[in-house]
């Protein structure tokens, strides 16, 4: 290319006093940002393709490398930012839709950071989680309207199918294809050890995950990849994916580079072809159609498993959730606009959808108002960065939370957002065998387990601080929250008071 319209994003800075020319960085970078000089002895860096994934930085034995933002100044312009200018250049070159990975990085308000938590002081004293039992077990599924018991206290109600989780945290949908088998296996192994579930995503179920099907949530998405009766029955529950927070209104997207032989087998599509799921399910054009599909799945699974519907958080989300509940869903998952993805059109990811905080609060309130809150379990998704976010979500009404980006970060992801290229240096968002082998499930699943255990512990500490000892007492307990720096409308939608009130 004779003219480079876009300067590189990052520079690799090598400290020559520390570099031992071992060449580890040369061999580890799939973007070929490092090489040996002509003499074969000195290592040089060419940062043209650097995406700041930090693989070289983290493996360098002497810490000789660092990544710096490459600043090539444009004339100051608050409107025509360098980013917008460069995106136009890329489209002028390719004529294509801009794709990107992971959740939107745009500076929209993060409501978690504007919500504060309560703690006990004098009245209703704190509970010490080291000395008192703390219940964070969560049970998902439709709850009966009324509980009747016989003389000895045994329930006489026919319970719909329930799912017991040892923690309110589940692993959100990441398909085989968008991530590697090793990454999925790590999540499966972690889910097993933690007593929670992992969502298989819309890529079908790889045969090596068969030992973990009792921990798997299988997805029926618009492309219906890999959906057959065994697939549905070998799961803990089934999720109908109507939408995804990162790209509401359109279907899943797996670029052809990531469709290897194994992916093509699992999805039942030709190798190397883009796997683009249709926007709607072509057999769901109304809420009644959804109801039919839910009942069809329940029949196919012998009524033994709850059926979940996953929707993206959009305008009117509350009404949609209510509709799903009435259509027979046992669980509804709402995916906020910060949700991650393996590949999505950048414009849709950055501009479509609403925050999960608002969507969750609105949906929970609507269901309560309509008196049908107990018909479904609400699962929230869309960027939980720490245990405090989870506590706040539960307080806003979530029964459980879906996490995906966080466990990936535990496995090495550095949020470089180039998942769609399939060259993930950490072996996560790629199918190239020379890269996927870098993710050793025996090492990585332990890191995920550590992360969730740490969060569970923190949740217990926070709850104890609030004076409650069960996650049931936290659920929907808006009184435990106060807003800060929020306007009247936001407070109203969230259903919380302002700090100081």
């Amino acid at each position, binding site marked *: 290319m004779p003219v480079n319209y876009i300067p590189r994003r990052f520079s690799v800075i090598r400290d020559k006093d520390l570099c031992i020319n*071992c060449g580890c960085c040369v061999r580890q970078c799939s973007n070929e940002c490092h090489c040996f000089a002509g003499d074969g002895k000195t290592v040089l860096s060419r940062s043209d393709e650097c995406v700041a994934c930090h693989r070289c930085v983290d493996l360098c034995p002497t810490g000789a490398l660092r990544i710096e933002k490459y600043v090539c100044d444009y004339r100051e312009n608050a409107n025509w930012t360098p980013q917008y200018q460069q995106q136009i250049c890329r489209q002028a070159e390719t004529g294509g839709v801009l794709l990107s990975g992971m959740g939107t990085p745009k500076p929209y308000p993060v409501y978690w950071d504007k919500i504060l938590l309560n703690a006990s002081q004098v009245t209703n004293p704190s509970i010490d989680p080291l000395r008192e039992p703390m219940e964070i077990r969560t049970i998902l599924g439709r709850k009966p309207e009324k509980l009747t018991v016989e003389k000895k206290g045994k329930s006489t109600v026919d319970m719909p199918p329930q799912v017991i989780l040892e923690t309110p945290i589940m692993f959100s949908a990441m398909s085989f294809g968008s991530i590697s088998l090793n990454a999925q296996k790590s999540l499966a192994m972690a889910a097993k050890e933690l007593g929670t579930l992992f969502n298989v995503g819309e890529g079908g179920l790889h045969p090596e995950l068969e030992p973990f099907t009792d921990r798997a949530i299988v997805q029926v998405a618009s492309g219906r990849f890999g959906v057959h009766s065994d697939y549905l029955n070998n799961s803990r529950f089934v999720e109908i994916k109507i939408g995804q927070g990162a790209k509401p209104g359109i279907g899943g997207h797996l670029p052809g580079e990531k469709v290897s032989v194994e992916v093509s087998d699992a999805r039942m599509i030709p190798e190397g072809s883009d796997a683009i799921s249709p926007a709607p399910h072509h057999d769901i054009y109304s809420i009644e159609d959804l109801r039919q599909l839910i009942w069809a799945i329940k029949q196919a699974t012998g009524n033994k498993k709850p059926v979940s519907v996953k929707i993206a958080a959009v305008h009117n989300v509350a009404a949609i959730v209510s509709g799903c509940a009435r259509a027979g869903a046992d669980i509804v998952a709402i995916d906020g606009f910060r949700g991650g993805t393996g590949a999505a059109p950048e414009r849709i990811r950055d501009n479509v959808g609403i925050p999960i905080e608002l969507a969750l609060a609105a949906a929970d309130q609507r269901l309560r108002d309509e008196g049908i809150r107990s018909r479904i379990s609400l699962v929230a998704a869309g960027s939980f960065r720490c245990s405090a976010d989870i506590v706040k979500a539960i307080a806003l009404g979530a029964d459980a939370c879906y996490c995906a980006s966080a466990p990936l970060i535990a496995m090495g992801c550095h949020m470089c957002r180039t998942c769609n290229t399939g060259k993930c240096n950490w072996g996560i968002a790629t199918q190239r065998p*020379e890269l996927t*082998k870098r993710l050793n499930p025996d090492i990585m699943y332990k890191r995920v387990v550590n992360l969730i255990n740490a969060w569970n512990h923190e949740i217990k500490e926070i709850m104890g601080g609030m004076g409650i000892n069960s996650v049931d007492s936290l659920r929907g307990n808006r009184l435990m929250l106060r807003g800060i720096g929020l306007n009247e409308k936001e407070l109203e939608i969230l259903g919380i008071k302002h700090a100081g009130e």
Partner: protein
Amino acid sequence: MKRIYAKEELCVNCRLCEVYCKTAHSLSKDVLTANKYEEPAPVSRVTVYGDKYISAALNCRHCDDPKCVKACITGAMTKDKATGIVYVNEDKCIGCMTCLAVCPYGCIKEGKTAVKCDLCRNEDEPACVKNCPNHALVYTDLGGENE
């Protein structure tokens, strides 16, 4: 006896094992000094062969019936009766490299004296095994013969 075995399916060709082997067999024992400033430069006893698609680290197999011990013309190469480790007595070694010419694995390196893996005799875990980022090297006793 415990030996080091490499798992091809986990080796990512980073060659950090070589860096840390040099460090462990250096005077300074510091990764920067050993690999950059020390003279004479320490030699790695383990070598990674292959490329980014398939690779594995190879070190001395500490054979039960070592060819190198038989070939050694000075008696410098011996197999320790207690630990089973095959090692070079550097005072006796004259650097003829006959051992190198008979080792069927290609594990002996040239130096002033013969250079080869000694399973980091004074440590409880060999440096390469400890520092492999992907756990591709295991230090274990497989129980069988190895020649």
